[in-house]
């Protein structure tokens, strides 16, 4: 019998020299309590430890004997010691489990064991069964198998080579046969289904495979698909940065538009939609990588019931806003409910203020023609801050989200004014059961849209801010570009578009598409105001071109709102991000 090297467990103090292969279990009786009933196995160990796979399945009952045994105890109980015996495989397992459970508690005695071990392996005539007799120093010591390591390195290298970060995936996309795939966050699922149904009824045999996500999830999905060759045929897009990010995956749509609507197709759309559809295109690139399906204004909404009860008029100037809010205070509702937790709400309110102060200046700051530290922009930050410091916004505005909380509160009559946008008209969706909607929303009875009040020293008229709600693009590598074009144009201005407009999801991107049903004359009036008076005059975008600026402005506004930055500091923090963006950072 050759001697072997043992891998010894850390805490075991058993001497491991010159041991033959055998199993050992030592049971220490706590002689004080329940000695017979509950022996506490203090130590149980197999020799050699089950490191070698050879022994895992070939453990046989062996006999062992402890010749000498010393216990150094720390407990109050005097330990009487000594348990020697023969254990089978199962019982050893059992002891081991028991001991594992209890071993690690500090209550147990520390045991030092000196022992030697005699063993009598049951020999078997079949050579494979007593392989432990063959184990040599060589095999026990031979740890990590170089072949596995090599294989792992090779495999990892292969994986890394086939899928590197930062490499544009060779694009191929979407559905096959007569199927197109559609992924977006908007319109909502129910409406999308109606649009698909009406398209498929007119185009038998074609199929649209659609999935609607919430917005953050959609961004994840799109990014993953763009880098995994599964880019959808039709995708929902925000104008500007998002469209530009996927530009290389998208096909120009002007041919599709001209084919469907004729060469003066652009006149069908509201000008802001056409302008924003190209936002961020590189110099000289006049392609339309996305076409708008819905557009909107961002504006304020009033609860007319509360205004009537308070006997106040809807404010048109800042001072009227301030006095109205103060007159309405303490009546159990928020005079001006500002859901400032959302970045987009902060930014659109800021853009309304900034454009009312110096129309268009912020966009010049964004493309480097002006500075964010311009006194007029600082003033806009100032007025944003005044919403909080002058007690216009409700307490805790910075922690309130727009959807669902603030929208629910406003609909429940807990606020007199709220900054949202044209889409609020969908509160009285004619395709929905009217008995199930809140009283204020029925036929838009309790609501009136209005523009953000003018600011002292600013423009004399409130400015129109808005833009594309959602636009659609088609994959450059779509297998069915004609079908995709047909779907896209149908949803913008055809029967699908009609279905969409019938739900009043927002204002259609094309002029002249009118819901087939209104829930009230008031709703019709509001609709006409939005589509005839407001949208054709929208000149200023509700978006920034760069997501980094969007974030920087949102952060700065949040810092001003909470008082951690002055308006001047906020403006310079945006300018420093602006400098990095312009420098290509």
């Amino acid at each position: 019998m050759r001697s072997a090297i043992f891998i010894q467990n850390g805490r075991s103090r058993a001497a491991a020299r010159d041991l033959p292969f055998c199993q050992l279990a030592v049971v220490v009786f706590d002689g004080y309590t329940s000695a017979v009933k509950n022996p506490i196995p203090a130590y149980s160990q197999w020799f050699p430890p089950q490191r070698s796979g050879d022994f895992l399945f070939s453990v046989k009952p062996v006999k062992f004997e402890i010749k000498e045994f010393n216990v150094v105890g720390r407990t109050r109980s005097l330990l009487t010691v000594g348990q020697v015996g023969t254990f089978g495989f199962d019982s050893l397992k059992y002891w081991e489990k028991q001991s594992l459970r209890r071993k690690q508690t500090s209550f147990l005695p520390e045991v030092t064991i000196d022992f030697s071990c005699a063993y009598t392996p049951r020999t078997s005539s079949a050579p494979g069964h007593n392989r432990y007799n063959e184990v040599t120093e060589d095999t026990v010591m031979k740890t990590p198998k170089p072949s596995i390591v090599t294989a792992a390195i090779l495999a990892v290298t292969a994986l890394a080579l086939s899928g590197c970060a930062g490499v544009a995936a060779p694009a191929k996309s979407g559905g096959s046969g007569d199927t197109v795939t559609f992924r977006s966050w908007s319109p909502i699922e129910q409406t999308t289904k109606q649009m698909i149904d009406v398209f498929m009824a007119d185009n038998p045999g074609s199929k649209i495979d659609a999935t609607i996500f919430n917005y953050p999830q959609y961004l994840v999905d799109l990014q993953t698909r763009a880098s995994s060759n599964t880019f959808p045929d039709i995708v929902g897009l925000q104008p500007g940065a998002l469209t530009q990010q996927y530009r290389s995956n998208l096909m120009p749509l002007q041919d599709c538009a001209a084919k469907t609507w004729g060469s003066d197709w652009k006149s069908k759309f509201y000008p802001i939609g056409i302008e924003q559809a190209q936002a961020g295109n590189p110099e000289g690139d006049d392609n339309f990588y996305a076409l708008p399906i819905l557009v909107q204004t961002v504006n304020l909404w009033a609860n007319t019931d509360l205004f009537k009860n308070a006997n106040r008029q809807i404010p048109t100037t800042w001072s009227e806003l301030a006095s109205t809010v103060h007159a309405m205070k303490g009546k159990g509702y928020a005079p001006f409910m500002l859901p400032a937790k959302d970045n987009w709400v902060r930014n659109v309110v800021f853009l309304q203020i900034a454009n009312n102060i110096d129309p268009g200046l912020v966009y010049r700051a964004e493309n480097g023609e002006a500075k964010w530290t311009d006194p007029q922009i600082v003033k806009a930050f100032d007025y944003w801050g005044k919403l909080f410091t002058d007690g216009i916004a409700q307490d805790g505005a910075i922690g309130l989200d727009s959807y669902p909380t603030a929208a629910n509160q406003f609909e429940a009559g807990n606020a007199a004014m709220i900054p949202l946008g044209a889409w609020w008209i969908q509160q009285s969706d004619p395709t929905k059961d009217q008995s199930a909607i809140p009283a204020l929303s029925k036929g838009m009875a309790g609501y009136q849209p209005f523009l953000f009040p003018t600011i002292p020293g600013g423009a004399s008229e409130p400015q129109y801010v808005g833009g594309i709600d959602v636009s659609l693009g088609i994959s450059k590598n779509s297998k069915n570009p004609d079908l995709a074009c047909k779907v896209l144009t149908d949803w913008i201005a055809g029967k699908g578009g009609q279905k969409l407009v019938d739900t009043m999801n927002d204002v259609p991107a094309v002029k002249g598409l009118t819901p087939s049903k209104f829930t009230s004359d008031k709703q019709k009036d509001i609709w006409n105001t939005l589509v005839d008076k407001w949208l054709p005059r929208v000149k200023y975008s509700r978006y920034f071109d760069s997501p980094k600026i969007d974030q920087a402005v949102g952060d700065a506004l949040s810092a001003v709102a909470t008082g951690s930055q002055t308006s001047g500091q906020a403006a310079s923090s945006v300018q420093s991000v602006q400098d990095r963006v312009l420098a290509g950072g």
Partner: protein
Amino acid sequence: MRATFIRNIPGLLFLLPALILFLAFVVYPIIYNVQASTLKWDGVNPGQFVGLSNYLDLFRDPIFLITLRNSGLWIALTIIPQAMIGFLLALALNRGIFASTAYRAIFFVPAILSPVVVGIVWQRIMDPFNGVLVGVGKATGLTWLSGNFLGDPNAAIFAVIAVNVWMWTGFSMLFYLAGLQLIDSSMLEAAKIDGANGFHTTVRIIFPLLKSTHLSLLLLGIIGSLKTFELVYVLTQGGPAHASDMLPTYAFQHAFQLQSAGYASTISVVLIVIAVVTSLSMVRVFGTGFITGDEK
């Protein structure tokens, strides 16, 4: 040597499925991330190699320091209170008080709810305008309850941590209950015979006997803290002004909203390093087997 390799082939084949999964879902993403962290990349279009400049930017990024501070706060302020409250609840329920099974279920319910649901509910509760806490504050005169916890940059992270503690305390309680039931009653009897009172039994006997439970909760707590995402995202979106951002929320924001996947990967790599260093030091301090109850 060759003979042993051939003999080991069946074993290696058994390992293969796990190895493939490990390579595909652990090793490969890590390598991918490390590589992406050296790029200026929007996640879609071809990236541009920038070496370590993302790392230099990151270590100069004040928001990154906020996320580190928040992770530290999160680890300290969730694990300890969660364990303490959970331990006390477990002790109480282990005595077989009336309807203890029902209580156990009730305390555990938050842990099985979706963090999104918990987030929305707590947002309503803490809504400073019309929330439950404000209502309670008004009715009882405890005006501090009307604070704008989620909207105050100094309080937001603590508010989210408090919700997290509420959510996961039942989980700790369940762990401790399981641990308590494994304690040998003879030991407690022995202590009683020796004259130990309830306090001594709890502090000197029960508490140390639950060491493996403490350590399991500690490790799970640290891992959970480092990868916290949903609750923060739903309650504050990391705001106001990043005051409650954690590493994962900040990485998500860069990857998908700010179109800087390269920078987000840099954050993730730092997160991996922190997680690995933490786990390894735990293993170093407490031994490899502490979580399974194995020998050190």
